[in-house]
């Protein structure tokens, strides 16, 4: 949660604004008054011309929002579920691994947040439809945010790639994102408000080695994002994608193994980019939070590249 500084010299203070009344530094300054007394106190604060950041008001960026995050049992999805819940969202955690999913939900609950786990495989239309239905049932019929994060990676070129690998890669990233959007959009459109974030990749913009199906799926996601932004913008829906570079997740460890490289060697190669390191799940979760929040209210159809400058050169 971020803290928004409030400079009383510049802002009209509403003394009945609850976070402000409950704020310890505000109470210290003006007491806990209500009504007339509080208005007088607020006027005193205005007169004080306190320095900026004298009063900090906690701002939850996703308060009362309902979010679905696919592939939320590990990596960027897990970090995003924790962060979105911390920022006030009620979160449906989905994935194929029951135990890990329940762990994420328990961690959110332990931190004072609200989440449910719905086991689902986004490659299956019936599962996607069920995730949306269970979210609406659990959280009062609303749905504000869909983060299509699920995806798998198999290293291969066009010759080595098996039909099973192609289907697993394209269906989890691309078809799954479409299916989740298909079942989420009617509720979002009825609300006249909704945000969809698709987890694409820097390799959805530039090509990568031994990643034919992955590049195809992620490139598809970048353009599907634009197409959906055009179709549903006037209905109040924003659709954007994130394009991470290498991020320290279980997916990287899996890829290192599949490429028969030691994890250390693999990470050294992955860090070879302008910022000189791989990304963290939390950094990607922060970018997803920005796209999910009202801070990005004019962004739609965009690809936000978060890769330490990896594809800049």
């Amino acid at each position, binding site marked *: 949660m971020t803290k928004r500084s409030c400079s009383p010299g510049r802002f009209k203070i509403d003394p009945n604004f609850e976070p402000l009344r409950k704020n310890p530094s505000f109470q210290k300054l003006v007491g806990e008054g209500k009504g007339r007394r509080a208005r007088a106190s607020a006027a005193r604060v205005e007169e004080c011309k306190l320095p900026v*950041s004298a009063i900090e008001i906690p701002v939850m960026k996703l308060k009362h929002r309902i979010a679905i995050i696919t592939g939320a049992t590990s990596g960027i999805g897990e970090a995003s579920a924790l962060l979105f819940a911390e920022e006030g969202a009620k979160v449906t955690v989905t994935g194929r691994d029951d135990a890990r999913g329940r762990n994420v939900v328990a961690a959110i609950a332990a931190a004072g947040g609200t989440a449910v786990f719905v086991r689902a495989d986004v490659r299956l239309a019936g599962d996607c439809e069920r995730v949306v239905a269970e979210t609406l049932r659990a959280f009062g019929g609303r749905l504000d945010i869909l983060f299509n994060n699920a995806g798998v990676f198999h290293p291969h070129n066009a010759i080595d790639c098996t039909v099973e690998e192609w289907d697993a890669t394209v269906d989890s990233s691309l078809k799954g994102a479409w299916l989740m959007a298909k079942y989420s959009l009617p509720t979002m459109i009825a609300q006249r408000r909704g945000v969809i974030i698709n987890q694409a990749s820097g390799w959805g913009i530039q090509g990568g080695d031994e990643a034919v199906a992955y590049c195809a799926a992620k490139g598809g996601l970048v353009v599907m994002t634009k197409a959906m932004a055009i179709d549903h913008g006037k209905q109040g829906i924003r659709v954007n994608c994130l394009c991470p570079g290498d991020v320290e997740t279980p997916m990287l460890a899996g890829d290192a193994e599949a490429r028969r490289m030691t994890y250390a060697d693999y990470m050294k190669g992955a860090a070879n980019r302008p910022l000189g*390191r791989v990304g963290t799940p939390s950094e990607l979760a922060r970018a997803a939070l*920005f796209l999910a929040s009202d*801070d990005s209210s004019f962004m739609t159809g965009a690809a936000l590249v978060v890769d330490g400058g990896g*594809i800049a050169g």
Partner: protein
Amino acid sequence: MKGLTDKRVVITGGASGIGAATVERFLEEGARVAVIDSDEAGGRALRKRHPNLAGVINADVADAAAVDGAFQELDGLLGGVDVAINNAGISLWHDFMNITPAEWRKVMSVDLDGVFYVAQQSAKRMLADAGGVIINMGSTSGMNGYPRYADYNAAKAGVIELTRTMALELAPTIRVIAVCPGYVWTAMQEAEYTPEMKAAVDAKIPLGRHATPSEIAALFAFLASAEAPYITGHPVIIDGGEIAGGLASR
């Protein structure tokens, strides 16, 4: 946004429009803000509206010597720069066939030369200090063609490539990003548009409206903050979906 409290921020063209909204946003985030603007009256009015500004420096970013002087003044005001918002810009509306060399030079000098001068002065201080973030004002005009803005479009395309190259050379000490807005509703637009013109433009944009200056300011704040430490070297489009489809979708 995290990590903007007490940051030393310089904003060019901060006296009006997107720049003024950005000044407001960074002050709200608790940053120490100074403005460089060639509009002296606008600068005075800004100062009056925001008495907590660290300073307003009257200088034209198109003039390398003036920018050098402005940054020396800035050293006195802020003692360094953590965040530079390269926002100042102009555009002229004219057919390609009618652009005069003087008009071409005028647009290039503010929109591209000015960005370079301010970026280099800022980077010099950041490299000698604790690093920083430079955000250059690009535009969807630097990515798509728009009739009657050939010079402006060329300058903005230049800003985007300048951004990428600076990011490569200045990493990991300095992050360099371009923000590429589409249509933004500012006082300048308000003076130029008839209601019919505005409606026609709005209809082309998937979100059905222009951006407010504060929406662009929010993106600047995010990119400059501790919430975006892994973002560098890229243009970030904020256009309500306008160029997601190009002409065919309009």
